[in-house]
């Protein structure tokens, strides 16, 4: 099964019932798989006129009680920024799959890229937190897509899955567990009296308000404007603080529970390679090659790019000399690593060109510099 197919299967396994998309390559493999399975799963799909409306339709569908997915790439992701903001503000769970291609604007749509990492974090205007996952194999495409739905339902936020066309086309055997064994967090529904529903009255414990579906008779109102508990727009500082602090804190304070990472050979390492996505496959090869040469190299992979594993990076920074951060861009996550290491370890950003995917040479060279 290819990565694209695994992603579509993951979405269906998680109970996704709606796909809104606009054809853009290289993300179409997911759509193809999803829509051929629609009839049997009861899911529905719509090809919208642009990515702005794809994500808008997805947000709308979520409020009818479905889980919803949109897939995109490149410029499409840029168009979606507007509604990532709306999704955050309305606290609408949804999953956005972004297949990163190389280059700005049109770029090279068939080549892998890694330039959308910061966009996923900061792309929409205003202040918010987001969750972004970066799988690195078809199996993980499946697992992390399920996880993405789980996280989005749990934290009521849009979740971004970042990968690239190389992973999408990559074929591998994917173990799909039985439906009963797939655990997806359930949406937190309000169960009180009908007239007592406040769309943004949150629980002090987890800062997450309960949701209701359209047509259940709650007659609620939600708005993208700064709103109070009732969901009504309120234009004052106090409400803005109440609103935005919680939107940020509901993820920031629970980052430890969200963050997923993979570590290898980090004990007594001198140099740690921090990577994510397709590059991490080369990074692991490079680390293993370096260890054969006697360099104490460690491997650290981000499964959740956002929220960033700040604490763990800081811990690692205390024990090593240097970080090597290979990415298919001129330094985005390396900036985060630099921030979290707070000068305790040097950070070496490695530009891993799209044509070098599958060739760990440049990463190995960067690791080798440690001993010089």
């Amino acid at each position, binding site marked *: 099964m290819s990565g694209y197919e695994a992603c579509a299967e993951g979405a269906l396994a998680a109970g996704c019932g709606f796909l809104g998309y606009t054809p853009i390559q290289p993300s179409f493999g997911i759509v193809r798989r999803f829509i051929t399975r629609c*009839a049997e799963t009861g899911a529905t799909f719509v090809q919208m006129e642009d990515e*702005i*409306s794809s994500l*808008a339709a997805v947000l709308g*569908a979520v409020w*009818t009680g479905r889980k919803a997915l949109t897939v995109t790439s490149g410029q499409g992701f840029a168009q979606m920024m507007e509604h990532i903001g709306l999704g955050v503000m309305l606290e609408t769970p949804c999953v956005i799959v972004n297949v990163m291609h190389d280059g700005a604007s049109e770029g090279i749509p068939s080549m892998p890229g890694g330039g959308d990492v910061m966009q996923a974090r900061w792309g929409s205007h205003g202040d918010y937190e987001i969750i972004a996952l970066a799988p690195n194999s078809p199996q993980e495409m499946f697992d992390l897509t399920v996880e993405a739905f789980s996280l989005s339902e749990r934290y009521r936020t849009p979740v971004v899955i970042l990968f690239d066309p190389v992973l999408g086309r990559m074929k591998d055997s994917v173990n799909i567990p039985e439906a009963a064994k797939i655990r997806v967090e359930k949406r937190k529904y309000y169960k009180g009296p009908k007239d007592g529903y406040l769309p943004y009255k949150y629980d002090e414990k987890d800062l997450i308000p309960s949701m209701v579906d359209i047509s259940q008779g709650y007659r609620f*109102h939600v708005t993208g*404007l700064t709103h109070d508990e009732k969901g009504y727009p309120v234009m004052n500082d106090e409400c803005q603080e109440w609103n935005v602090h919680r939107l940020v804190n509901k993820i920031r304070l629970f980052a430890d529970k969200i963050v997923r990472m993979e570590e290898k050979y980090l004990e007594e390492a001198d140099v740690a390679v921090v990577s994510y996505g397709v590059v991490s496959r080369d990074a692991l090869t490079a680390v293993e090659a370096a260890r054969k040469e006697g360099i104490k190299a460690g491997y650290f992979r981000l499964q959740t790019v956002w929220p960033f594993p700040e604490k763990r990076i800081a811990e690692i920074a205390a024990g090593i000399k240097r970080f090597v951060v290979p990415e298919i861009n001129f330094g985005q996550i390396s900036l985060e690593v630099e921030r979290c290491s707070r000068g305790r370890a040097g950070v070496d950003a490695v530009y891993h060109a799209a044509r070098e995917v599958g060739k760990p040479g440049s990463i190995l060279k960067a690791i080798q510099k440690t001993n010089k």
Partner: protein
Amino acid sequence: METINTIQEQKHPMDDLLRMDRIPHIWCPGCGIGNAVSAFAEALRKLEYDLDKVVVVSGIGCTGRVAGYIKTDSFHTTHGRAIAFATGIKLGNPDLKVIVISGDGDLVSIGGNHFVHAARRNIDLTVICVNNFIYAMTGGQVAPTTPIPAYTTTSPFGNFEAPANVPQLAEAAGAVYVARWTALHMRRLADSIVEAFNRPGFSVVEVISPCAMYYSRINKLGDGLDMMQFYYNNSIIRHGESTDNLNIDYQKEIIVGKFVDRERPAFSESLNEWLRKDQVE
């Protein structure tokens, strides 16, 4: 006087349809959006439809605030994207009746693409487009519907852009029901909304509404009442008029009526039919 006291205690007949805790609303004195809401509420009352199954979606702008005043499940979304958002709701749960109420700038300018494509797909939506010829909430800028040569804050020498003809756009894109009324034709407007509501497919009702604060002030057309009086004197009811003739010239006659009423298969019907075929095969 006893009778009056008991009557005073009676609720306004629309109190159950509106979020009375938010009234007074934000619209200026003399604005016609309240009339459109009133007509819509009247239509809901006439329909006696289960209000739990009705969803109102708005975009941004003066008319974008409508969703916040109507006591159904309601969404106030991003600028121009109300139709796209409503499309998702309708496809997510085809049993719902989804109504988009938004302004001309929202639906025809920034949301023009969504308007055209939702009509083309024939998504089962009712769109109420309140047309006040101007971007009012942002400060009276030229809108896609501003007639030539009206003054706005961004057309200080008079507007020279050709305005959009909303019914023609809707018809060309494939809407099944298109009507236009002014904010004064309250009963006909409410009846039209009822008809549009019951029509499967994409239906559009345009409401010509006075903007007393920007459009009429900068053009020295008086207040809301004067605009209403202008509609009273200059609107001509011509049902079935070709939408080619529906351009609105500056302070000229406004043709109102029901222009398009036809049948086309709605999107969700077609989709389900295809899915069924697929399963049979």
